[in-house]
């Protein structure tokens, strides 16, 4: 009987310890600097669940650069994208592309300011 109580106590101790760990391992956002050399990607910013989440800066080995908001590892929210050949975009992103209000300035200084829908500039008919 004494042995059984000891075994039951051991089991309960394992269960409770694991329960405490489980309840305290909720994903927390944290700041990190990480390089993925194979893909030529460098990231400085917030991370959650191993993916970019929140504000961050992503630079590519070809010179492309994104600074702004991420959700689940993708461009989502307000951000600035500077392309290495000289054009840039400042504004709203969603699902990784231009979505919402933004300003795109081409290599030769031409400005597209207004609304973008899934990467397509919506021409104002008025």
């Amino acid at each position, binding site marked *: 009987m004494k042995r*059984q109580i000891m075994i039951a106590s051991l089991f309960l101790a394992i269960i*409770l310890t*694991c*329960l405490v760990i489980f309840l305290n*391992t909720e994903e927390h956002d944290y700041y990190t600097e990480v390089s993925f050399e194979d893909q030529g990607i460098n990231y400085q910013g917030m991370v959650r669940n*191993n993916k970019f989440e929140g504000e961050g800066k992503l630079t590519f080995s070809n010179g492309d650069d994104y600074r702004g908001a991420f959700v689940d590892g993708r461009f989502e929210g307000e951000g600035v994208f500077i392309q290495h050949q000289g054009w840039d975009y400042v504004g709203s992103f969603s699902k990784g592309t231009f979505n919402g209000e933004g300003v795109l300035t081409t290599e030769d200084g031409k400005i597209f300011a207004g609304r973008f829908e899934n990467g*397509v500039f919506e021409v104002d008919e008025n």
Partner: protein
Amino acid sequence: MRIKWFSLIRISGLLLVLLYHFYPESYRGGFVGVDLFFTFSGYLVTALFCDEFYDKGYINVGSFYRRRLFRIYPPLLLTILLCLPFTYLVSHDYLTELPQQVVSALSFTTNLFEIQNGGNYEAQFIPHLFVHTWSLALEVQFYVLWAIVVGVLAKLCRHFSGTIKNQTTYLRLSIFLISLILAITSYVTMVVRSSRLTEFSPVYFSSIAHSFPFFIGSLLASINGIKQVPQRFKRKAQQQQIKGKSVGIFTCCVIGLLILAKQLTFTSQLTYYLGILLASLLTGGMILSARMLHEKNPEASEPKVFVFLANISYGVYLFHWPLYVIFTNRWSLSQAVLATISLSIVFSMGSFYIVEPLLAGKDIVVLKKKLTPSQLKYGILLLLPLVGNLFFLISQAPQMSTLEKDLWLSNVQQDVDRLQMAREGLEQKEASDYTFPKGTSIIGDSVILGARDYLMENIPDSFVDGEVSRNLDRAYEVMIANQEENVLREYVVIGIGNNPQYDYEEQAVKIVEDLAAGHHLIFVVPYDDSSKLSELVKEQGEYYKKLAQKYDYVTICDWAVVARAHPEIYEDTDGIHFGSNQEGNELFTKTLLAALQEAEGQPRKE
């Protein structure tokens, strides 16, 4: 009191689950096997509580917890310790999130962990080794709370005047009412929540929404228990033909469950509206008919094989999944199934006939040698290396598999390429004779996404748009969106098939018919010989070939044939995604280039 033929209910539940895991294309609704377990557990636990109250005048909740702990925990610990050494046979990726998996399995919270992670058995990538302990978690959560509820009810019923028989009647009545309320609440929660979902894991793994099978079982136990059954039930048992009728009802319920196992799917709303409820009600039918058979002929003996299988069923359920996940990566399906079943039975026998009795303080005889609980210390010494191995593997486990990481980063790169494409789209360019750009648009799933960088580097003027879990339905939307934005290129490659839909014919025809004039269309025949939905994947590939025969602007890139001839490109992968293998990338690109060349000689869509 052992009720004969209840063993068949446990065996039926286990068989349905095994069929679902081993042959998901044939028994895609076999997951209802766990609902047999749930309903049966609800019935058994509640009926035993009622009997205990009737016999003793109280319910010893502490003793119930102790008995459950000694029955449930040793096989669970053994599953984790004995199965993990087999992970040395497969890639490191199989250990992804191992610490979280072990912690949640050992604390009976796997269902909550899987809700957080959106995991399920049909997850596309390497499944969690201990995902199946979600049902154990739900069961233990039910035991803990239900024992308290019934314990409180029993205390309240003691205050009623009258005989213990009357007090037991009050207890059963109160259990009936509470079970009814909880079953309805849980079922309504499942229906309402599932109506708003397309990914059903949160409702399937939910402690609330998926608890009604337990309460259907407890409701049944409050009416027709184990020792205590209504007079009407006893009178029925005296009828001449009742034996045949009971066998008939039991058989019909089993057939009904088999039909559900064939027809339901994890992703169908019908499963959550009706399927799980029907499975629970059919289990109720099995319980009643088995109970009647026992009442009719209590002296009849049950075949020993049934008793044996029922005894090891819990162990087999626990051991089979991690072993199967590992073995299917190394061997063919039939070899993996055979090895899984054999080892699961051996481990379960060891657990049920040796470890559990020893821990419970009983002497046992193994190979004519008597083992006493005091010899446990030698057993503990044997377990030490396994415990050491567990901690070692936990320290080595990655947070994200290589495949997941590669796909996610490819996705990031793809987003940047899309930005460039969007930029180019601002100033319309002249393309070919038609008003769309030259080159190749490749629309694919995670297989294509994994090979994206290599494809874009080696196929001229190509743009690859891949997405994890993409099926034909979604590929159609991407194709039409690209077409409307005028960025769909001259050659359109559809590399979809490893997430097959049952309506793939309709979806494929939509792609063929709604593609704008002037394009060439190439279908990549998908490859998947790694079990799971392989038959459906093959059927979809065969259908692509029929389309190519019917429409002259459709060309086939037969990746399935090439991939099958080169198993080496899948070494240390999940058997589907070759993207991490350079040779695989080269081979796929070469095959696709050959198909593009063939398409060049074919007519365009008129």
